[in-house]
């Protein structure tokens, strides 16, 4: 069923739709230009950089000195312990770090991320809160 609006209402609806829609698109344009043309925001959220990275990774972590198993790592970070990641490696690092900063509480956590980016030699990233 379609409702028929008067001209003023239709014009008002057009303004609202155009403002919201173009606003969304323009906001993305600003983010895209900012992220890609500056050195900020290496994690590239909301900047349309999809599947542009080939990252083979492995996560190892220990909590209070005890190494975590693969399934524990998956539950803790909602990521596979060993996997293929097609987004910026900085995003992976950021997820691991922010998970611990948000939820670690008094646990002493050490994370080791080993990865190969685009076929380059293996690199390591470590993080610890104590």
């Amino acid at each position: 069923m379609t409702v028929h609006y008067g001209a003023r209402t239709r014009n008002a609806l057009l303004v609202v739709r155009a403002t919201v829609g173009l606003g969304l698109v323009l906001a993305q344009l600003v983010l895209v230009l900012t992220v890609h043309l500056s050195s900020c925001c290496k994690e590239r959220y909301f900047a349309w950089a999809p599947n542009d990275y080939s990252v083979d990774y492995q996560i190892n972590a220990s909590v209070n000195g005890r190494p975590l198993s693969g399934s524990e790592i998956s539950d803790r970070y909602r990521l596979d312990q060993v996997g293929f990641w097609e987004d910026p490696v900085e995003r992976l690092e950021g997820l691991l770090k922010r998970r611990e900063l948000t939820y670690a509480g008094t646990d002493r956590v050490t994370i080791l991320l080993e990865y190969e980016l685009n076929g380059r030699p293996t690199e390591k990233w470590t993080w610890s809160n104590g």
Partner: protein
Amino acid sequence: MDRGIATAFQRAATGLNPLRMSGTTLPPNLLMAAKLLVLAYVLEDQLGDLPDGFLPFVSYLGRFNGSVYYRHALQAIIVGAALALWLNRAVRVSCLLIGSVLLLAILSSQPYYHNNLLYIGLFFVIAGLYDERLGSLLFRAQLAVIYLGAGLNKLLDADWRTGAFVQDWLRPDHYETGYVYTHFASLLPGTMLSALLSWTAILTEFVLIPLLLVPRFVPLAIFVGVSYHTGLVLITGGSTFGMFWYALVATYIALLQWPVRMVVNYNTQDELQLEVDKGMHISRFTGVAAVARILLYTPVFYIACVFIFTMSADIVLVTYALIFGIAYCYVPRIKAMRERLWKHASDQKHASDQVRV
């Protein structure tokens, strides 16, 4: 009076027909695209992956961390809105609800963030914001921004420019087609094939921007865009990059100029003939071109495709066959154009030779 009530019921029942794409506030192809995309979303089991509030972008949503009720609420809203959409009830509101919930889900959990899921959310929000005076502008602008971001990211990455990314990305342990790709890549020196593919991707994405933003080039943008993304599915042995292929193809469907009327009959040579009336002009097609367009403008074909594709059958074969069938009718036109240009050039040369004499 009774006949009036019966007619009203009949009209209401017809309106509830999920295969009906007209008679709502959205144009038929946009409504169809939205229905197809939400169907694909459900059939690809994406509902089960909706998050709770684990590690949110917006800290307030963190209170829903571990909450199955939050997850179920998101699922219920999407399912309810999807049903309303398929039954042609409040289609704009349904689209806005689906899109808003998907964007909320992304804001709820950083590990849940994927570009393909973000785009589906934006697709439904933009569909809900449709206004006939804006036409397809918002969709075209959205796609242009996506291609700008993706193109810039690739262009500014040295591993993309040299082909190192593609060479590693298409390894056999990443995609099964890697076995075939590695063989072909070894026929050329170094990473030449990978660099060629990289630059093809970069140039395609940048070329699509003006094609989308200039209205008269939109049909070409649809052809290039669908071919490009289906090519990625081919090269990776069937990967749709989550929901990306579905969402992008749905968008291109929404950009189609949908006919107001189609007439199918047989001409005097017993050939299948299709007359397509798009309001501003009427086009006639026969044979393969006619069959391809009948499929192109038939919702049931797309619905069948969604079921087939989500059961892992051949996206590439069906999509390229349809593109070929549609493009087929342009072959005689291109030949005729070429002959006209050749004749024109030949006439001009003849005229200038006569002047010299």
